[in-house]
């Protein structure tokens, strides 16, 4: 069991001893194919590692059929934030095949804090690190997506600029300068040095998103 935990990326900073300790507090569960493991919108406080088999992330499709939109495989973890902060599940998951999971609920985490505080804080520390990295990725993705929206609106903005240059000569040069200061859209917008106009446009779009 601890070797499966050892292979989970989120827990790569845990030592072998930590993994063995963590295993003591986890429950082993088995699901038959088609069994619902999580239901979207239902409260959840359990973290779950897939030890064998696979989980399907599904959405209701036409004619009462489920559509699989993602899959969770062996060594992957779901809901690790729920054992710290219980929340409604984001998606419905069903066992794609006969699946074995290791689970840790909020209650077990609290017991771990009492009985094995060092391992519990190491585990929570690993989750915090993972959350921080994911937060950065999500933030960067938002910025990229918003930059994409802006790129899609470029013809419209160009048109606006053309009509403004036709209708008035005053302020034309500043409008042109502002437009020209928008950098090329190739690559990620995140991390690049952007002129203030670009930042402001992104901020406005972000506000309206």
């Amino acid at each position, binding site marked *: 069991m601890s070797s499966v935990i050892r292979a989970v990326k989120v827990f790569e900073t845990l030592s072998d001893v930590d993994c063995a300790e963590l295993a003591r507090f986890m429950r082993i569960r088995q699901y038959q194919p*088609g069994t619902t493991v999580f239901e979207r919108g239902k409260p959840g406080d359990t973290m779950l590692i897939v030890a064998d088999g696979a989980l399907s992330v599904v959405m209701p499709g*036409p004619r009462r059929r489920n559509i699989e939109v*993602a899959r969770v495989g062996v060594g992957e973890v779901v809901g690790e934030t729920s054992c710290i902060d219980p*929340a409604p599940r*984001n998606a419905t998951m069903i066992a794609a095949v006969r699946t074995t999971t290791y689970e840790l609920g909020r209650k077990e985490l609290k017991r771990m804090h009492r009985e094995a505080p060092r391992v519990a*804080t190491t585990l929570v520390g690993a989750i915090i690190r993972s*959350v921080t990295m994911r937060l950065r990725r999500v933030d960067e*993705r938002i910025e990229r997506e918003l930059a994409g*929206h802006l790129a899609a609106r470029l013809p419209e903005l160009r048109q606006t600029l053309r009509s403004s240059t036709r209708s008035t000569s005053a302020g034309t040069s500043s409008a042109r300068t502002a437009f020209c200061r928008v950098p090329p859209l190739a690559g990620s917008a995140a991390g690049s040095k952007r002129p203030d106009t670009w930042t402001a446009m992104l901020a406005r779009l972000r506000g309206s998103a």
Partner: protein
Amino acid sequence: MKAAGQGNRLPGYTSAELAELAAATRTRHFSAGTWLCREGDTAASSFIITSGAVEVVKYLDGQERVLATLRPGTLVGPTALVEGSLRSASVRVRSDTVALEFRRKAFHRFVQDGTPLAVRFQEQVALAGIRQLRAATDRLAQVLARSVRPSGRKPATIDRMALAFIQAGTGEWGVHLGTRQPAATKE
């Protein structure tokens, strides 16, 4: 400090617990108008405001914007306790302030001790990060849902917003996205 300088409230700490916290941190005094930290600096510590007030400042469109005012009981820049990322905004002292500076290494030692206070404090940091991540995932789902154009039958037959949420959460769960044409499975 990401996401508009939201800090974490640290309610219900007794004076004994605050004394324990003080032992793990460095008490610092800041005069009004000085800076706690500046945007773009490498973050090596967080600050717990014990008196006074600070404001989170960012320059947008060449103009200074005050994003938030943080008061006693707030942990400023919790991300610094986890990694040495760059400060995403500046923090200016609004009125004379006393703050406990928590350096990353000291925080790790404090947490490793596993005292009940350390556990609670770590949980507060975790909760703040998790809620921030959920809010960001929500925001990304909104952005993705807006960019999905109804083309063909499939996007119209499923909840577009929910699908966008799943796409947004892909990184969060560490799951593999399925094939481009999702396979229908029997219920």
